[in-house]
């Protein structure tokens, strides 16, 4: 069930009504959320509900096991590794089994021996990478004694499967989300209106920006050899906006939906394309995953408080597994490695935390220096996105090969029926609104303060009308569902 589908338009009001009808009984509310989340997930494939339930049971029991204060360190470690083993084992099997078999076969063939590994037809369960990391964060935090293990199985199950963020994040930490399932909720008008506003903006990003850019990007990426170099650059730029609109749009809808149920999810995007260097970009892009890797992988490895050689190792390791998390393909690994290469000079020169504020804070326009640094950072990410979008390394190589030709200095040409000018105008409006709202949680958050109710409602109506008018015929599922 997609957020931008008719099914969800029926599902959501029903769950919302039931949830708030039960607001005197927290258990009942959690029950409603749990059942609706299971139903939401089973709309894709009910068989994989068993994986969520298994993951829930394992981590709940291990949490209870770790509650026992008299356990020795080695037993506590054993419990932790059981949880990691089961969760990562399931993820590894469903997501990476075939990839590793293929790589082993290729490697053995290269050395002149044969390896009889058989690939099998495996369906990747939607959202497995997201809920696996979420439950793992619970066990690790309990193990580190950062949070108390819960004895409330209903609340824990609802935390693992909470439908707004179940299939594509944000990847929540137990320390933030779990207590919210244990606390009684009161309907808050301001928060609910804010949630609705964020949902609207998320739909705009997904249905107008991402889906329109997708039409152009798909056409260009489908056959790089048939397009001029400048058109290929344009295709990569459109893909950059597609993936941003798609994923941050999803996050906005998820956060907004959760707000309507009285939950506060963590911010997942913070206007990353207005970053002045790659380090800033990674503090603002897919924040819930970046901070997950920072807290549970990078810092335990020593982070930046270690020798130079280990710093380099840590950065590459984290970026590469972060890339690999996205999918079992060399393109994601190269994408991760490329970002590590972009990031490393900043880390080694200790400039990775230069830009902790918002660009041009309190000003309408950026300075020339800011403009240049933002543009160059954006172009670096665009280059890396080519690997992310490409079907294979040879596809990416073909794309790059055709991108660096003399036709780079010609006007881009698109022969498809896709209206490029309309998309460009929409993109321009979108970037302008995002720029004006870059100091808020999401672009149109401050509209409440800036406009009176009449103008505000006119603005919302125009956004709705724009969605109706400019949604392309071809509807694309959210990109991150495949991860």
């Amino acid at each position, binding site marked *: 069930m997609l957020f931008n589908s008719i099914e969800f338009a029926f599902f959501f009001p029903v769950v919302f009504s039931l949830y708030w009808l039960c607001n005197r009984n927290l258990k009942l509310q959690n029950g409603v959320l749990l059942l609706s989340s299971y139903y939401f997930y089973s709309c894709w494939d009910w068989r994989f509900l068993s994986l969520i339930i298994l993951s829930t049971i394992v981590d709940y029991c291990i949490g209870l096991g770790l509650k026992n204060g008299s356990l020795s360190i080695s037993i506590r470690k054993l419990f932790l590794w059981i949880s990691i083993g089961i969760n990562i084992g399931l993820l590894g099997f469903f997501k990476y089994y075939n990839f590793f078999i293929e790589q082993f076969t290729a490697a053995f063939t290269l050395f002149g021996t044969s390896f009889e590994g058989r690939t099998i037809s495996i369906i990747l369960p939607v959202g497995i990478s997201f809920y696996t990391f979420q439950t793992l964060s619970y066990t690790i935090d309990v193990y580190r004694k950062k949070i108390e293990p819960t004895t409330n199985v209903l609340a824990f199950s609802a935390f693992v499967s909470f439908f707004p963020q179940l299939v594509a994040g944000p990847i929540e930490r137990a320390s933030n989300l779990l207590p919210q399932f244990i606390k009684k909720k009161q309907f808050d008008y301001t928060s609910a209106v804010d949630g609705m506003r964020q949902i609207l903006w998320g739909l705009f990003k997904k249905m107008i920006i991402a889906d329109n850019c997708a039409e152009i990007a798909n056409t260009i990426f489908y056959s790089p050899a048939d397009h001029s170099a400048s058109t290929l650059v344009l295709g990569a730029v459109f893909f950059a906006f597609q993936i941003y609109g798609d994923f941050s749009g999803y996050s906005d809808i998820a956060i907004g939906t959760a707000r309507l149920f009285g939950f506060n999810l963590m911010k997942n995007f913070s206007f990353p394309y207005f970053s002045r260097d790659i380090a800033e970009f990674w503090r603002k892009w897919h924040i819930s995953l970046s901070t997950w890797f920072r807290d549970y992988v990078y810092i335990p490895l020593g982070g930046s408080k270690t020798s130079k050689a280990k710093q380099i190792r840590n950065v590459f390791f984290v970026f590469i597994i972060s890339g690999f998390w996205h999918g079992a393909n060399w393109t994601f690994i190269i994408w991760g490695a490329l970002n590590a290469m972009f990031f490393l000079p900043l880390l080694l020169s200790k400039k990775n935390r230069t830009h902790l504020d918002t660009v041009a804070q309190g000003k309408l326009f950026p300075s020339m220096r800011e403009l240049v640094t933002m543009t160059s950072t954006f172009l670096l990410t665009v280059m890396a996105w080519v690997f992310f979008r490409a079907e294979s390394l040879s596809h990416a190589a073909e794309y790059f090969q055709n991108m660096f030709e003399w036709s780079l200095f010609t006007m881009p040409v698109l022969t498809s029926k896709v209206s490029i000018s309309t998309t460009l105008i929409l993109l321009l409006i979108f970037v302008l609104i995002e720029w004006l709202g870059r100091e808020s949680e999401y672009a149109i958050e401050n509209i409440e303060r800036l406009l009176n109710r009449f103008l505000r409602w006119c603005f919302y109506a125009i956004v709705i009308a724009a969605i*109706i008018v400019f949604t392309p015929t071809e509807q694309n599922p959210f990109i991150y569902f495949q991860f």
Partner: protein
Amino acid sequence: MKHFLKHIILFSVFATLPIALFLGLTAHLNPNIVFKKQGGHLYSRINELTKFPKVDVLFIGSSHAYRGFDTRIFKRYGINSFNLGSSSQSPTQSLYLLKKYLDDIECEKIVFEVSPQSLSSDGIESTLDIISNDNMNWRTVKMGLKAQHMKVFNTLLYSAYIQLLNLDADFSEDKIIGKDTYISGGFVERQKQDFKKSTSAPYKINQKQFKCFEKIVSLTENRGIELILVQAPVTSLEYGMYENSTSFDSTMSAYSDYYNFNELISLNDSVHFYDSHHLNQTGVEVFNNRLIELIH
């Protein structure tokens, strides 16, 4: 909560006017509304239908049908026919058209053009074509709502509005649109032109379309109409990209008489086609003559 719900309702009422205004003002710039004159000549075809109360053969299917079955060639062999094909027509729309018009047009045989594309289609393009060109009734509304697509909803609303206010009373479709010429009886002719190569992705059969296909088979059986399934020829380049052609052929053969013309006639991509999957008039002649031999 009451306050919140009250505001949601008030906003819904309030928003109707700006949204309607916005849609009205941008109607002709709106990429999400389909108007008539989009090509395919379905408007002319539907309007001509009443002139053909009784035919020997009725053709249904996608552009492969209305560009592939030339009613004039069939006439030469003494076969009266009418072509009810439409742009990207998938089994959902074929079923819709048959249910709506089969009472008005008596026929002995139905030649149903089937292909992996039409059975894999989401049917949106065809639904839009029909809604914008056909006279609306509850069946049209039902089909539009089932599509669950913004563009279809917009077009449905716009067409209802146009029809209710009788705003297109003066509309008449040109016989020649671009390179296409409408021929009485539903055929659309395109003469030989430079062959344009294009590529397409592999097809995956859509179960919803397959169910509609099965309903068409039952419908014709119940009415005692002979059903002939035809896969129209496409370029060898295109046909080579189809996966599981054998399995598609055996599935189709299980339902009725079935002819796959990619296997039955030998055509030259650059001589008989104007793009990767549409015959030009030279190709149509070869295809239709062979079809008549087989079914007559």
